[in-house]
């Protein structure tokens, strides 16, 4: 599986309140949530983002609330993968469970800049910055989590296991 797109870049501690502010949590519709994604730190994000684009951030991405609406909003906005130095743990679980590809890589998170075209090969964990001609090795998922991702999320994984 591969992803390729233009990078939207953010800093440390991007919290779930800025990914999807609580004032929009009276909805749980992905398309509705996507309309307000990143609104409080990057009001133009939803206008700029194109299907397949990639989000890159530094440490502790997705900290704060447990709202699954955050990875849902990012995925529904068209983002194909989030690369970060580290992810907050509930966001990490949620992304795997709903099938939003994420990858931890400190070097890539530091070096990749907004507007770069980046390609990710999930099988090898390799991240290629096509604009700069650089490459990085991301942290591979343990096999158990890889299996959840491959089956399309936790619900499918449980259904298959119990079948």
């Amino acid at each position, binding site marked *: 599986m591969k992803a390729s797109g233009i990078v939207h870049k953010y800093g440390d501690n991007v919290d779930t309140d800025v990914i999807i502010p609580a004032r929009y949590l009276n909805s749980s519709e992905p398309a509705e949530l996507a309309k307000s994604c990143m609104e409080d730190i990057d009001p133009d994000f939803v206008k700029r983002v194109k299907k397949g684009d990639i989000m890159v951030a530094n440490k502790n991405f997705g900290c704060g609330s*447990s*709202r699954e609406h955050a990875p849902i909003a990012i995925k529904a906005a068209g983002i194909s993968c989030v690369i970060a130095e580290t992810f907050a743990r509930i966001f990490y679980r949620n992304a795997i469970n709903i099938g939003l590809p994420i990858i931890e890589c400190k070097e890539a998170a530091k070096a990749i800049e907004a507007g770069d075209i980046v390609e990710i090969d999930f099988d090898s964990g390799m991240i290629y910055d096509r604009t700069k001609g650089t490459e990085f090795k991301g942290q591979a998922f343990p096999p158990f989590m890889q299996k959840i991702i491959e089956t399309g999320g936790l619900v499918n994984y449980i259904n298959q296991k119990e079948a």
Partner: protein
Amino acid sequence: MGMTMTQKILAAHAGLPFVEAGQLIEADLDLVLANDITGPVAIHEAGKLNKKTVFDKDKVVLVPDHFAPNKDIKSAEHCKCVREYAKEHDITNYFEVGQMGIEHALLPEKGLIVAGETCIGADSHTCTYGALGAFSTGVGSTDMGCGMVTGKAWFKVPSAIKVILTGKPSKWVSGKDCILHLIGMIGVDGALYRSLEFTGDGIANLSMDDRFTIANMAIEAGAKNGIFPVDEKTIEYMEEHSKKPYKIYEADKDAVYDEEYIIDLSKLEPTVAFPHLPENTKTVSEAGEVKIDQVVIGSCTNGRIEDLRVAAEVIKGHKVANGIRVIVIPATQAIYLKAVEEGLVQTFIEAGAVVSTPTCGPCLGGYMGILAAGERAVSTTNRNFVGRMGHVDSEVYLASPAVAAASAVTGKISQPSELGL
């Protein structure tokens, strides 16, 4: 090599004699929780599972507390979704408006969680129950929905940070000052993926309400869970509130910790976290002149009876400063009633504060106290991210009930000593 307290609870629930940090396990759950924001998504996901029934109708808890009493039509639909699911599945512990309170104050009060148990909740502050010596952690809706049906969840066994608490806090210093101080020391990702295990003889000087506040904000340091050893106060609390059998786990003497911190509670001062991260802490003495527009006293962090008693003690005989809005929210109906009986509500109202029915409302910028552009609030809640309580250009300063109440009287960030207390 020994196990930490958290690892021992997880091992027991995974049916394993031993677990170590990094190991992936599947653990049995004693309690699974959701609210009106996360519940509908969890119910939707659970509906896609082949198995259609909940694993145990007594072990699922549904609490509409975030945007309840219903703040608007969409919220009303969410609450209705949770209500109907609870009815359809005969969920024992569904709490309707009138019985409901803020979930993390409500569950321990109702005796639904005790020492030695495992709990997941689709709310990040589910880590609160670590105060009782339980393993308790926040998850998203899919994990909750799957846990509600299967009674199980997967975990990566966490390593731990040991936090040794010593000494006795002074009169106006509380659990909130302790946890803000710790987050200020280690940062908002200082305990990422790990447990915060509290220990030390200072714990005996902390009330259960203080411990709930500390465990509650473990997530603000990125922790998977925060956990306290079980002592006489814990046992007294559980025996007063619960009929469930509890099990006491202790960390092995040779348990390995990634890091160790010592906090002398007697040296702590009233502390405040400046915008826009809980790690931006200063003592109130260092805060300087910060004028405010609103004060919120409540939430799963600080809406318990002791919090209200302290706030009332500070505010009694004073008036809220001119132009300041003060919103007091008892976390549960039982706390509300106690606050009425003890005359605390009268004190607040006479001072010029409003007292609301239990809700998470303002903490997450839902309703009941939203900030306009440029406005500042001192709040006893848990997060001060950009836009957390309203407009993207508003500011939230996190503090204890004592500091919040003193600030309500002066109209700027203050501590009780400034009122001659």
